[in-house]
């Protein structure tokens, strides 16, 4: 018990809580917030991980618990794994792609900084989803515009935060931040393409050698 108490009151944990709470500040004051996040060390990787995990949980609840009027998923085909993939995949890919790109264009951010910035930028979407999910059980199909409005607010807020985060993390001008963000989206596409191609080639290769082995065995057995 005392151990936990020590932990809870320890400096590290206090910083973690503070950095988690700081996500609400970056949401409201993105330019100031994302500068302090990296350069004043007011954010932490632990908090970023927490936000990602929370986002995954909220997304699963959002997809499954929303009233069927608005999101209707056949539960037999629902898989939480794909939800995780849909969230963590873009996050990691973007971090990598953006880092690869910005190191060439003298960006200041490290890969962990980009990860942190992306994670902190997801907070408004997370909050909007928490609001929307119970709201869908109160509004009818004809009042869908309320939800659509909220949803789009969350979406565009996220885009804005990403641009701000990239600007402050890499110490760019606004235009450069927009351009590098768009370029890293393209880079993500290329990475996915290469990844898929690599897998297709490898699986074809394996299948080829496997069938070769089968053939050999077959002939040996037949004598």
């Amino acid at each position, binding site marked *: 018990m005392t151990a936990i108490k020590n932990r809870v009151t320890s400096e590290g944990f206090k910083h973690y809580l503070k950095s988690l709470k700081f996500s609400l500040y970056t949401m409201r004051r993105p330019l100031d917030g994302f500068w302090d996040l990296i350069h004043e060390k007011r954010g932490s990787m632990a908090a970023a991980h927490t936000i990602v995990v929370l986002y995954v949980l909220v997304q699963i609840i959002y997809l499954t618990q929303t009233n*069927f009027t608005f999101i209707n998923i056949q539960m037999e085909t629902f898989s939480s794994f794909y939800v995780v993939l849909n969230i963590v995949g873009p996050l990691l890919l973007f971090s990598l792609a953006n880092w690869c790109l910005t190191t060439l264009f003298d960006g200041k951010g490290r890969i962990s900084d980009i990860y942190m910035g992306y994670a902190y930028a997801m907070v408004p979407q997370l909050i909007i989803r928490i609001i929307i999910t119970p709201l869908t059980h109160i509004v009818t199909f004809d009042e869908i515009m309320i939800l659509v409005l909220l949803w789009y607010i969350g979406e565009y807020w996220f885009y804005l935060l990403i641009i701000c985060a990239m600007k402050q993390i890499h110490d760019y001008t606004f235009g450069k931040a927009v351009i590098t963000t768009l370029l890293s989206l393209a880079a993500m596409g290329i990475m996915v393409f290469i990844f898929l191609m690599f897998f297709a080639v490898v699986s074809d290769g394996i299948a080829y050698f496997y069938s070769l082995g089968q053939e050999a065995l077959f002939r040996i057995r037949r004598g």
Partner: protein
Amino acid sequence: MVKKFLCAFLVAVIFIGSFPVMEISATGPTNYTYTYNEWNNPIPSPDAYRVSAYILGQHLYYNGESIGQWRSPQDLHVWQGYVDNIWRNLLYVVDSGNNRIVILEFYGENNSEYSVFNIIDHVIMPDGEPSRFNAPHGIYISDWAFNRGQIWLADTNNQRVLHVDENWNVLTEIRHPGNYRRCPDSDGVVFIFDPGEGPSLLDANSDFLPSKVAVDFSGRIFVQTRHVNRGLMEFDRYGVFAGYMGAPPVDVSIIDQFWRFIATQEQRERMILNVPVEYNNVTIDHEGFLFVTTSSVGVEPVARLNAMGEDVMIRNGFEDPIGDLWIGIGADRSGPSEFIDVTTLSNGTFITFDRNRGRLFAYDTQGQLLYVWAGPGNREGFFTSPTAVESMGHTLFALDGGRGDNLSALTRFDLTEYGTLINDALDMYHRGLYEESYDIWNEVLRMNGNFGLAYIGIARALLRQGDYLQAMHYFRLQNDSRNYGRAFGFYRRIWMEQHFWMFALGLGILMVVPPVVKKVRKVRREIMES
């Protein structure tokens, strides 16, 4: 000892009980009926229609002789009315390969007896000469008051549409609109119009191959012509070409518009406005709307056109009426359904015939799929090359125009108990008698728990009765968001009214408590300070 016996007994009971009671339900032949559920998965369904007669030409006799096999028959038309002062139910079969029209008469209980009423292979021209048919493909017999019983025949290879009276005397002969047309006036004089009068949109050098024909209540004649991809050809009641109708509006994409913008005038003229639609059939329903089917890409496969040629079909089903939703490749068939014909019932249900897989699709007035049955094959109730479907009351006739011995057949389908129930319920439901249809829908559900429309019917009845929570439950089962929203809206209002005290109390507390707290604090501070 007793324990042992008890144990043995129990084991025996469990053992015997674990075998399902073998109950062989004698359902007889099935037509592989299915429907699509709310997730668009195909679900088996009881038969709504079953084969009640399989009519081959060689089994029919006229004047003591067999009339011989059908040879790729192409069209059907049902006409019910008085002939020789007797009410007759006549079915006209256009026996295209034999260049004849076979008229079957149905009589007796449930119209289950039939015999050949007449065989027509020529018409009498206005000058008294007989004129034989050459591969006729379509027929229409008017049921409208002012020209009841008159017949229009698409005599395809003779390149003409014939308008004949009840005794097969030609009244008008519609020829290639680019060439000439003639018609007798009241004195019996034949007019010959100059070529080129009226809009001559059909190239004079191309063949005029009328294939299907329909006539509306004002006497306008709609001809589906082969190799014409601008919709239906419309003629006025005297056979004068009036133009094309029914082609869907052209959706010009932004890219096309861009090219058009930068093109020169000459180039622009050479560009073709392309939304080719070649209808393959035309029918008129009981309200005078045209039903057309097509297998053209990018066009609704079945459409209901108003007098202006605009598509007014209601498409409120889970999916639009496009036929099969699962179009996997199997049995040498692939691709989407290709509708070849459509027929309507008096309650607004329409039935389309899929040429690709030989299936019949029944849709209600809202465009909601009811059931699908039949399939490809050359046995009773299956089709090799479907050509036409027609309804006589609730009885259906489907025509197979397969080439080859015994492949052409006329199949008669009659409603089963299940189909009758659905039709009864739909009749009431579409007249707005939701409460009355409640019991019938329940009966339908008893026979087929997968029939989605029944749940919606029940939910509507419940909604009407004010049982909102239960209505919501039934709408939920069918993923019917819009109607669920309506039921929920009512439920929410009542809930709010019943729980208004909670809101009032909450508001009251919010309004009363802070000032009181403030006051108390102030008083306390004053006491402390003093």
